[in-house]
């Protein structure tokens, strides 16, 4: 597989790799930098989830009819479900490449904490598949006729909720690493675990569309985020170790 080398990349890189440089080479930042660099040279990594999100969203008005009142009512749930599906689509391949080329084994053997490396991987994955969704969400909200307040809450809920889904997806991907039917299996594993995030997230937006305060739901979602951030990365590291044995 040969990669096209954009001229800018070919010429510009003369930076020495030394400790003093800004390029991090170890730990979670190192992994994140590596993944972003890889993704930057292979645009499908982040374009595909985004394209899927937009495509899935477009199905609903086509399927349900263009009645603005109806669309406004279903918008919170629809946007959230499409975000969830889009993230599940991209997350199941999260560790496959590293498993295939042996990088995963090097990470397990190295002196860096596996939890830190996993955290870096998750962060990169979120930046690639979750972040773009958050950025596009306002457009989606407006397309479905949500009010300004509701769009704000939608963005906030996705900002809190997409990391949760990435972390749960990482755990599922790590457990199902290398198995046949991996994609469907990851979906099945992660979906029940992701339902609370879906409920709180879309619930917050529903409250906003009804003119009620969304603070309670967003706080619950925030608490869920913290809990997931504490539990999911170590569990994922353990699952990777199990899957590689």
């Amino acid at each position: 597989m040969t990669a096209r080398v954009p001229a800018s990349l070919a010429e510009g890189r003369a930076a020495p790799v030394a400790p003093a440089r800004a390029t991090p080479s170890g730990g979670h930042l190192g992994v994140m930098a590596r993944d972003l660099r890889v993704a930057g040279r292979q645009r499908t990594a982040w374009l595909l989830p985004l394209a899927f999100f937009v495509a899935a969203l477009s199905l609903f008005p086509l399927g349900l009819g263009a009645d603005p009142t109806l669309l406004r009512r279903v918008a919170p749930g629809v946007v959230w479900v499409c975000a969830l599906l889009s993230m599940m689509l991209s997350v199941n391949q999260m560790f496959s490449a590293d498993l295939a080329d042996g990088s995963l084994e090097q990470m397990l053997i190295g002196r860096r904490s596996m939890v830190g490396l996993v955290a870096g991987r998750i962060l990169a994955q979120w930046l690639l598949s979750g972040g773009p969704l958050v950025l596009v969400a306002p457009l989606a909200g407006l397309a479905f006729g949500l009010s300004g307040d509701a769009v704000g809450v939608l963005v906030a809920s996705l900002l809190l909720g997409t990391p949760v889904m990435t972390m749960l997806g990482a755990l599922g991907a790590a457990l199902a690493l290398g198995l046949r039917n991996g994609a469907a299996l990851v979906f099945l594993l992660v979906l029940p675990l992701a339902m609370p995030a879906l409920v709180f997230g879309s619930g917050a937006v529903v409250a906003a569309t009804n003119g009620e305060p969304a603070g309670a739901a967003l706080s619950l979602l925030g608490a869920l985020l913290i809990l997931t951030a504490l539990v999911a990365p170590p569990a994922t590291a353990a699952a990777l170790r199990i899957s590689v044995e």
Partner: protein
Amino acid sequence: MISEPARTDATALLQATRLACRRGGRRLFSGFELTLEPGSAVWLRGPNGSGKTSLLRVLAGLARPDDGEVRYDGAPVHALSPVQRGRLRYLGHTNALKSELRVVEALAFLSGLAGEPVPRARVQAALSRWGLAGKIDALVGSLSQGQRRKAALARLMLDDEACTWLLDEPQEALDAEGLALFDDWLTEHAARGGAVLLTSHIPLRSAPVRVVDLASLTGTGPRP
């Protein structure tokens, strides 16, 4: 059973006792014993399917054996300190070099995992020795299989201190020049006090190695 003269933990870098491994319901080997001291090289030999790769992975701590234990400097392989981990190197069949990265980026990432970011000059020197001087900024995906293997082996040259190497078929895809270089370099590494355990179908020509034959589980003495 390989009978080794009794050694104390203090001198041995790696000590494997009573290792047994099963894969797919089949017992690959049992009662495997090995002691690796600094400055020694061991060539693990055996036919395909005899469990060489599994054994190597067990020794590296990637897989758990069905029985027995592996110790480095006296510590169990699953409870090594970061410093001890930093002195262990494993090279599998795959090179752990991502195709989308440049060679220098890939090598920097790998050495970063071991804890030491490496200056570019060192990377350049290591690659030059392997005949890849001009490839330092090339994308890994543009290298041939043999060149990628050389780059992966070059990564081992980036270490300051003598480490313990566990190499699985390191000579695969190397050309004649690469094979000669590998031989020389093994000798150097052993002279520095490092230890090597490798599996290979290609005999090592000049480097002094102890041969361990997995098929018969008998050991032979050092080659002259």
